[in-house]
């Protein structure tokens, strides 16, 4: 019973009119009224409104969670769209198989991983999740089932990878898993004192390490800008380790939303400083279970409640290689000046492997991800500044984590959006899509502009309303 199908950032709040569970893969889509749209909802781990369909219907896939077949010779798994990455790990790590790409949480569905074309710490070696998807079955609102792959219905396939759930319901998919000999990761961590050092470490590590990522202190003063910790790792190659020997980690849960005072910028600044100084100066090595390496946040369930009821905004952008050094530095200095900080600022260089996805977010360059507690207008102003910096460099902002970017910015970041609009199932829409395309994507009236403004106005009024409430609380 997830919190009324809100998104992970609890901002903006959205209220679906209907929630319709899809439980079996042979089931048809619900017959909705002609004017309302539907949107698949995976596990709600997107931060903003890409998994929301305010006032319309969500198709939940929690029970669409079965494996279909597995080929032990090739490592190709066929499974339903609601299967979680955690289900795959639990079942296949003991058999010597791992996810080809994993985001920072394993509580993500296959449908969600494909629809946002998620990336992980091995982007420089493996590309995005979509690079490892062999086939998907799409259920369209006409009742048609289309099996797409790079060879059949390839345009629809490319529109579905990173397609934000708009091309139809992903009923099942074939995923290429990768062989491993141990559930352990050989991890190294190295403290760095500035951005140049980060980029040097990244360049040195990207050939010999499968996984690389950095954490940075985003509130450090001028001379320390960009200091942080570089983390890199490889799957342990020592096959004397038993595959099934995975020490269970206890999980804690945050039972309720914390008061927002905890998030005072001073607290965040101190947290960052202490965290940095706790890191040993020298390179350290450790052999650790994969869960500890990939999913440190998953040990605290509902950690998003730490941000209180008014929620938070995640911000993730990519700056193309040409401008990455200045671009990231500029972003950090704007953040530092604003004194709105993040507990966890993550930095990573993306590689050149191209995803088949038309709307895929990663591109060669450097990505920065931060979360900002929501303080109303000042937070939104900061994000607008960051957006324009990103736009100047020819970069992009990640839709999976966005609740704010303007339609102009979105369309500049993702010129292929027109193509998605053409291939979108006319019955499928989301709060995000209506916001960033400014189209009335409720079925039926796609040509009537008045009904468009009505729909968007309603959402805007709603967004303002919640903003107003939030500011009142603050």
């Amino acid at each position, binding site marked *: 019973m997830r919190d009324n199908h809100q998104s992970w950032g609890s901002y903006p709040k959205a209220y679906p009119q209907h929630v319709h569970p899809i439980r079996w*893969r*042979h089931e048809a889509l619900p017959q909705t009224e002609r004017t309302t749209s539907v949107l698949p909802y995976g596990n709600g781990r997107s931060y903003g409104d890409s998994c929301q369909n305010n006032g319309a219907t969500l198709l939940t896939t929690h029970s669409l969670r*079965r*494996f*279909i*077949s597995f080929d032990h010779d090739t490592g190709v798994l066929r499974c339903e769209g609601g299967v979680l990455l955690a289900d795959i790990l639990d*079942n296949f790590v003991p058999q010597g198989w791992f996810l080809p790409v994993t985001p920072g949480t394993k509580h993500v569905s296959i449908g969600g991983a494909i629809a946002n074309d998620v990336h992980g710490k091995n982007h420089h070696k493996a590309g995005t999740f979509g690079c490892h998807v062999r086939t998907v079955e799409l259920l369209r609102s006409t009742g048609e089932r289309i099996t797409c792959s790079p060879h059949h219905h390839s345009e629809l396939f490319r529109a579905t990878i990173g397609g934000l759930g708009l091309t139809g319901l992903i009923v099942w998919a074939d995923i290429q898993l990768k062989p491993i000999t141990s559930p352990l990761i050989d991890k190294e961590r190295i403290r760095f004192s500035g951005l140049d050092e980060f980029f040097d470490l990244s360049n040195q590590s990207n050939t010999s390490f499968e996984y690389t990522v950095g954490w940075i202190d985003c509130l450090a003063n001028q001379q320390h800008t960009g200091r942080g910790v570089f983390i890199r790792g490889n799957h342990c190659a020592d096959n004397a380790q038993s595959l099934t020997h995975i020490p269970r980690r206890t999980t804690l849960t945050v039972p309720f939303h914390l008061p927002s005072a905890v998030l005072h910028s001073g607290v965040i600044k101190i947290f960052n400083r202490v965290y940095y100084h706790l890191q040993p100066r020298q390179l350290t090595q450790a052999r650790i279970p994969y869960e500890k390496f990939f999913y440190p946040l998953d040990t605290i369930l509902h950690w998003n409640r730490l941000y209180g009821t008014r929620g938070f905004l995640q911000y993730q952008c990519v700056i193309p290689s040409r401008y990455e050094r200045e671009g990231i530095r500029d972003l950090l200095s704007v953040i530092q000046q604003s004194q709105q900080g993040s507990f966890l600022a993550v930095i990573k260089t993306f590689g050149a492997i191209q995803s088949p996805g038309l709307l895929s977010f990663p591109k060669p360059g450097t990505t920065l991800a931060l979360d900002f507690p929501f303080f109303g207008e000042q937070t939104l102003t900061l994000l607008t500044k960051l957006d324009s910096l990103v736009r100047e460099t020819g970069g992009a902002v990640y839709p999976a984590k966005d609740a704010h970017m303007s339609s102009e910015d979105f369309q500049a970041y993702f010129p292929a959006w027109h193509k998605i609009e053409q291939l979108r199932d006319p019955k499928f829409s989301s709060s995000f899509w209506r916001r960033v395309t400014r189209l009335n994507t409720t079925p039926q009236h796609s040509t009537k502009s008045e009904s468009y403004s009505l729909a968007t106005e309603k959402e805007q009024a709603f967004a303002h309303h919640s903003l107003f409430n939030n500011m009142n609380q603050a």
Partner: protein
Amino acid sequence: MNILIIGATSSIAQETAKCFALEGARLYLAGRNLEKLQAIQGDVFVRGAKQVEAMALDLCLLDQHEHLITTAIHTLGRLDAVLIAHGTLSDQQICEQSVSTTMQELTTNCLSTISLLTILGNYFEEQGKGTIAVISSVAGDRGRQSNYVYGTAKGAVTIFLQGLRNRLTQSGVSVLTVKPGFVDTPMTAYIRKNLLFAKSETIGKHIHQAIKNPRDEVYMPWFWQPIMMLLRSIPECMFKQLKF
């Protein structure tokens, strides 16, 4: 482990099936919808089941039960355990107005189970070992105006199981009565969820455990035991005044 799961398309039963699959069990699944059965078959097979077979039949067709059970025994070679899980949450108001709906509900939730248990009881008695597990309900512990048709069916199943347990203990067969409280499954899709609702994963896993380590009657989750004890202890003259 060879297990026959009757009503295998139930959300709770699917979760129990997954646990057995992980241990490399052999499963025989019975339910009324072939497509659903096939989806579960694929899933448990990938999860590690050594063999998974299925039969589609409406369990209200009592004269098919003998055929189902003999086919399952024949296919798997022998049965170590059976789980009976099918059921429908009767609409009390419709039942009050319709004799035929009431009889239908009693057939689904009680008579079909009693018919299956009669055949299975003899099989396990002769075998001299094994576990018979049935999902009854806390609703069978006391009749209430809001759902006494369903409650009657479950109550009768609970009493039948008590008798069967009493009879089969001598032969080394264990009989498990599972009494879940509210569980979030399609059966309760239209009921507003509250803190008392458990997940089908949790209940499914508990059932797996209770089959592996034989128990008699188990409330799931555990807190229903004190709640039901309290509810049963209220004198009837007071209870009849309560509205729930």
